[in-house]
């Protein structure tokens, strides 16, 4: 039996003073931000200054808001680059100061910035740091900022997309400090004794999704959903017309998943039919007045609670051009990392492809797309993906001294596809 989430958090906090670094693996929606906020308050309570590192400005702003909301007595310095325009809501928060230099911030309890911004800061050492989204951070970024702190808590999701580079980094493969590896991989290879905790419960994913995502993408560690089978529901208040799109939404409302399968055809990436299907699904979802019920109560699924995900930027552009309400988020897997919605509509990365490439098979890509939802996920794909996986030549090069990464993209795709096939319309 695994520890309760509360116990894990206590273990993490207890480990902080005992180790130079503590790592917490957090599957999708397992309360990573909650942990960061709680650990921040815990450290601030000791009176020692703390720096927080996140990867994007949105993540930084989000954390600032959460900290101020939970712990209004804490003072927070938001360090930013020159061109950054803080959102209005941030300027209204008491206890928050925004500035481009450390000197501008006064002497707050917590200073928070992106890794890129921290890399320009020097000549001061913080006793504590929290590094958020540490698996999406490249180790060369960590190298630039690790001199700023004495001890650190690293938090992130190991199942999402790995960091990448536009240049070939094979020359460094096998080195324990390979700059293209994630910050956590490099940290743990040099400090194998550091404790690694795992948050065991996803509060985001419903009971219909947690086992699927857990088995496909976290086969060795696993997690469960915080809610039971009947705790989340999705109702379509307006009646349907029996179209395939309506039936897909009904299946998704009923079971949490739906696969809208289009006829098997090899297409261009911006497959017009698939793009249209995605757009129609989103429109119908709004038209049918979806209402989501959960432990947080009942609320309508408004456009801002819906996301559409795809693998490529040109697909995203094509879907946006198909005339969706602007409040619906349409983005690539890379940019949907760390986000949460009630319902997601996903254009399957392998839909219409003739050959699967390493890009399409990367398990993190599908993991992100299949784990953003609180209620339901509708996948649009052309038939034939099973055959495509079957015909995939498996001859990936092997680098000596590089630990094998699991799950295998092929296996993960296969597992998700098999599950989806039970919800096909």
């Amino acid at each position: 039996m695994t520890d309760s989430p509360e116990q894990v958090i206590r273990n993490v906090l207890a480990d902080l003073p005992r180790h130079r670094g503590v790592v917490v693996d957090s599957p999708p929606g397992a309360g990573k931000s909650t942990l960061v906020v709680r650990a921040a308050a815990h450290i601030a309570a000791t009176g020692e200054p703390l720096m927080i590192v996140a990867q994007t400005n949105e993540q930084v702003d989000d954390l600032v808001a959460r900290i101020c909301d939970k712990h209004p007595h804490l003072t927070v310095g938001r360090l930013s680059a020159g061109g950054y325009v803080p959102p209005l809501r941030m300027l209204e928060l008491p206890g928050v100061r925004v500035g481009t230099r450390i000197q501008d911030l006064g002497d707050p309890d917590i200073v928070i910035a992106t890794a890129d911004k921290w890399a320009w800061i020097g000549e001061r050492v913080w006793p504590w740091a929290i590094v958020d989204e540490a698996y999406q951070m490249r180790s060369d970024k960590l190298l630039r900022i690790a001199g700023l702190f004495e001890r650190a808590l690293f938090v992130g999701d190991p199942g999402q997309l790995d960091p990448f580079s536009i240049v070939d980094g094979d020359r460094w493969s096998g080195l324990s400090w390979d700059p293209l590896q994630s910050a956590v991989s490099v940290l743990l290879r040099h400090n194998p004794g550091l404790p690694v905790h795992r948050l065991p419960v996803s509060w985001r994913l419903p009971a219909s999704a947690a086992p699927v995502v857990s088995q496909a993408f976290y086969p060795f560690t696993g997690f469960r959903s915080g809610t039971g089978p009947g705790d989340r529901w999705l109702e379509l208040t307006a009646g349907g017309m029996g179209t395939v799109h309506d039936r897909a939404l009904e299946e998704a409302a009923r079971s949490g998943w739906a696969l809208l399968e289009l006829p098997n055809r090899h297409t261009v990436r911006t497959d017009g039919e698939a793009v249209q299907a995605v757009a129609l699904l989103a429109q119908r979802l709004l038209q049918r007045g979806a209402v989501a019920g959960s432990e947080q109560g009942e609320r309508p699924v408004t456009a801002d609670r819906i996301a559409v995900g795809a693998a490529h930027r040109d697909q995203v552009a094509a879907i946006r051009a198909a005339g969706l309400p602007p409040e619906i988020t349409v983005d690539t897997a890379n940019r949907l990392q760390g986000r949460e919605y009630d319902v997601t509509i996903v254009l399957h990365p392998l839909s219409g492809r003739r050959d699967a490439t390493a890009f399409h098979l990367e398990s993190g890509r599908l993991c992100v797309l299949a784990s953003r939802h609180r209620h339901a996920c509708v996948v649009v794909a052309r038939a034939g993906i099973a055959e495509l996986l079957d015909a995939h030549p498996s001859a990936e090069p092997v680098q000596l001294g590089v630990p094998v990464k699991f799950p295998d993209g092929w296996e993960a795709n296969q597992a998700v596809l098999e599950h989806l096939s039970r919800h096909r319309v």
Partner: protein
Amino acid sequence: MTGLMREGDPVRRLEVLRGTTPPRPHDARAIAALAANPGCARRALMDGAGIDKDAAARHLGFPAPFGQSPFAITRGNAFEALVKADGCAELLRMLRELLGLPIAEVAYHDVENVGAHLRHAHTRALIDRAARDGGEGAPSPEAGAEATAPPATETAGPGEAVSTAGTLYDHPLLSLRIAGHTAYLEPDVVAFQLGGRFRIVEIKSFAVIDGQADPSSVAAAARQAAVYVLALRTMLEELGHDPLMVSHDVVLVCPENFANRPVATLVDVRKQLAVLRRQLDRMTTLDRLLDGLPDELTFDLRPDEDGRPTRPVAELSDALRRTTARYAPDCLSTCDLCFFCRDEARQEGASDLLGRQVRDELGGVASVAEALGLADGTRDPAEGQEEIARLLRNAERLRRECLT
């Protein structure tokens, strides 16, 4: 398999496909290559039937472009001899260092010394005894770990400190079931056993330089080693032992830097094992491919008494064309029949010639003429081709604008 009961059951059908040509034994390299292009029906059928693709290609006038230099062969043999000299003394030194084991002594069994027909039985008996003697009380290297533990390099466990005598089995003869046949694997491998744990040792003569080796060579070695791991696991299972007594970390022995001195590296072959299992499973579903073929179809080379093929080339070529190939330029480094299929693709004007990526980009357009017709606007897009036609026309417009 339900097909077994039907007329034209798969095993018999595969024999008809092969005809009077003697089957080509499946060695580990050939089995590992099954995954090179699983979408190719032609290759799947030929491999399933045990047909010598190299001989067929030569007979067709499209000999495979794979040759090995005598220098490379000499070098490989010399290196292997060096590693195995004095009862594998070098190998033992490396295993000690690599596994961090206090191996006091090691027994060396060369199974090759047994007559060829007995070798498989002898291997079986040796492995059985080792598993029984060493296996008692010693946990298997990753008992259940494949399913539950995060990937990690193994370290010496409690069982290993106790047992200090290991055994090296050279040239063990292992087998695997492939498409209904038992394939005996060429015994060019060493199995190491200590305390009831087995490890496959693969000796290769490509260099490891400053810790790095050619990734495609390592991948090929890992695929082959996985074949042996699976065969050894299968043998143990048949003998009633825990198959996971065979480690998924194989020992790769290569020359280090620019010298002849060997260096051993652990290579985790779990992914290659998964791929191999998938491909072997697929080989049992060949009946689907066979169903579509004419009953009398055969790839027989009709060898004469001296083994020279006598079948008219045009006839063999026609027979092969009755099956669908999935040519890709990658075949040029993995399949004996590559030049034959490339020639076929050229005759058909197939865009496959330009590579998988180009083929994929063209959406559903398979032929060169069709794609160019759409680009020039001389051809109307068929249903479903409107988008690629628009893209191609746009690309053509841009190229013309920039080049005139």
